[in-house]
């Protein structure tokens, strides 16, 4: 199999629009202040780290397809266009078959909540403009329309580890020649309903929102390119394989790491969620960063940010290899390794 290289990365996060903002937030090491979310009917404390408005407003937001969309589509497109960079026109002209894999856990929650609220009040007056935007694959559809690509396009739904499954799928599509480039995007949007749901499981979790994108191509990046080196088997959380054991299995599959590899972990200062991952990497003595501690639990967007930061560190010469560890919410533990 030929090598799969990273041809671009993009990010929209509570730190701002762009990879630079993400990198700088990580360098500062200060958690982004969360915003209070208003929950109807109960003045309970719900918080989330929100994406700040873009300055200046990106021109793509004027596209006809994006005028009525909720933030999740804006985040996805913003991160994807940054990752594609100068190659954006190649997809539009058909000069490059561009696949899209969009990964979400909660997806279009803002419009789903809004539409169901309308239905609940009176289904006869629920808005036909809102309903199509509730569908999981609407952000991927908008992205394809904006880029003008008619190649294969999947929306994968699962916990944060799904983003790494998406990378493996993209590598497969590239290896078989099904596409010539593939965008893998992880994206989520915040809402009081989501924060309310998470509160049942861990009150210290602070949600984040945004998107991360990795643009993969096949074997054309030269010696300095960052390569996708490995993605572990997804280790499911099942009655006979609890979370801690799944994390250990994931770690065991990544055993060939060097001590100076960079570990980009998924912990978030929430003991209940972090314990399994911390135990799996207890003996790790190399450098490590934990972006969720600063940006919040961004679900699929967060695992995408982890990958973006790992790749960015390699591109900037901070390490020769980087490991991404994702011990998800309720589905799987899965890891990835990138290298120069």
């Amino acid at each position, binding site marked *: *199999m030929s090598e799969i290289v990273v041809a671009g990365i993009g990010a929209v996060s509570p730190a701002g629009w762009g990879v630079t903002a993400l990198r700088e937030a990580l360098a500062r090491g200060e958690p982004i202040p969360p915003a209070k979310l208003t929950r*109807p*009917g109960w003045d309970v404390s719900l918080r989330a780290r929100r994406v700040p408005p873009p300055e200046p407003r990106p021109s793509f937001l004027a596209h006809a*397809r994006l005028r009525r969309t909720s933030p999740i589509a804006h985040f996805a497109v913003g991160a994807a266009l940054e990752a594609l960079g100068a190659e954006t026109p190649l997809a539009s002209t058909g000069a490059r078959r561009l696949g*899209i894999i969009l990964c979400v*856990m909660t997806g279009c929650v803002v419009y*789903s909540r809004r*539409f*169901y*609220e309308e*239905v*609940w009040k*009176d*289904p*006869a007056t*629920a*808005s*036909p403009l809102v*309903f*199509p935007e*509730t*569908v999981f694959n*609407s952000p*991927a*559809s908008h992205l*394809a*329309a904006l880029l003008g*690509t*008619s*190649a*294969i*396009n*999947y929306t*994968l*739904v*699962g*916990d944060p580890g799904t983003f790494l*499954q998406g*990378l*493996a799928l993209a*590598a*497969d599509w590239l290896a*078989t020649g099904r596409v010539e480039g593939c965008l893998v995007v992880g994206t989520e949007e915040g809402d009081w*309903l989501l924060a309310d*749901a998470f509160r*049942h*499981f861990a009150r210290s979790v602070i949600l984040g929102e945004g998107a991360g994108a990795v643009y993969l191509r096949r074997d054309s990046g030269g010696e300095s390119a960052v390569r996708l080196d*490995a*993605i572990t*088997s*997804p280790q*499911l*959380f*099942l*009655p006979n394989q609890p979370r801690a054991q799944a994390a250990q299995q994931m770690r065991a599959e990544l055993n060939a790491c060097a001590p100076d590899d960079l570990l980009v972990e998924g912990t978030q200062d929430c003991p209940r969620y972090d314990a399994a991952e911390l135990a799996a990497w207890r003996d790790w003595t190399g450098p490590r960063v934990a972006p969720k501690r600063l940006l919040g639990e961004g679900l699929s967007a967060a695992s995408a940010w982890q990958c973006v930061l790992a790749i960015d560190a390699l591109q900037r010469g901070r390490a020769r290899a980087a490991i991404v560890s994702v011990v998800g919410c*309720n*589905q*799987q533990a*899965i890891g*990835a390794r990138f290298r120069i």
Partner: protein
Amino acid sequence: MLFPPRQSAQSPPRVVITGAGIVTALGLGWQANADGFRAGRVAFRPVTLFDVSRQRVKLAAEVDLPAELPKTRLSRRHLQRLDRAAKLLLLAAHEAWQQAGWPPSDDLPVVLGTTSGGMTLGQDYFRQALQTPRTQRRQPSRVLHYEVQQQGLDLAAAFGFHGPVTTIANACASGANAIGHAWELLRRGHAERALTGGYDALCQLVFAGFDSLQALSPTQCRPFDAQRDGLGLGEGAAVLMLETLAHAQRRGAQILGEIVGYGAATDVHHLTQPHPQGDAAFAAMTAACASASVSPEQIDYVNAHGTGTPLNDSAEAAAIFRWAGARAATLPVSSTKSSVGHLLGAAGAVETLVCLMALREQWLPPTSTLRTPDPVCTFPVVRTPSAAHLEYALTNSFGFGGANATLILRRWS
């Protein structure tokens, strides 16, 4: 490791179906559905699952769930927490699992398609969160079982296996994309077996959504009819057990049929409307034929997406004509959505299973509600139950967002 994958063989293995399970408004299981689809029985009735008094349309194809779910490794308490969609999925999976006779495994990929997963639980959560915000009872369980990935995990726990769980949510093409993706996993050497299919249950949000778009038929779902006026919603699930031919033959499995081709393309014309000439549908059918190494002349039956909406059926008819050319004039086409409605994320999987039934039992499923074929149909629409000699069948699935998928099946003989 998911990546790099195991070295695949020089030529991709053939992939066969060794188990199949189905639940629709026609009934539970292969026999009830085969009888119903073959006869063109129509299973619509007044909606009882939620209040439709303020909707334009009041009919859907509801499933009668059995009082007891099949015995699996899931506890009674766990079963009580499942929502309607998960129950439909479990019923179909149990039939398929029993038929395939697979032992528990540590390396069994699951690939599922759905549009809304456990949405009924999401609705319940939302209503309680607003009506009695301080009442937490049942809410954590609703959150867990609402999530799409939980339904895949439930199957793994129910039958005792591990493996990657992948859920594709490509709107109404989800089920076909899921089967196509599972087929590709086996062809690429990632696994020797895969459990795949699609499922969706009726829920108020989706019903009201289609009604708000005025996409639901206020009369009767009549795909390809000149006076068609919309689709009818249904619910259900279909699960297929895919296996490489070598693996199936090694263990002496009964082979039900073969999947030979898959194509997918994206329509960027509009979020909810197809390109009038069916560009992406044409691309998906062409790609499926290329991957199957068959020509349209070899296809003996097309199970169309055929929703019954004016725009879908005319675009699909145009695409079939572009793809089939002269063959269109004699190519039998039907839409079985006239019987069980549009099953959304389950549609592609159920219609794949209908093709499998037709190939195994050598009949054509009719669009029995058709009165006057639309002149855009350059092909004969199957209107009455009929026997036929079928070697290859093709099924189309198209969805919101421009997701288009086509699968080709071959009779096993």
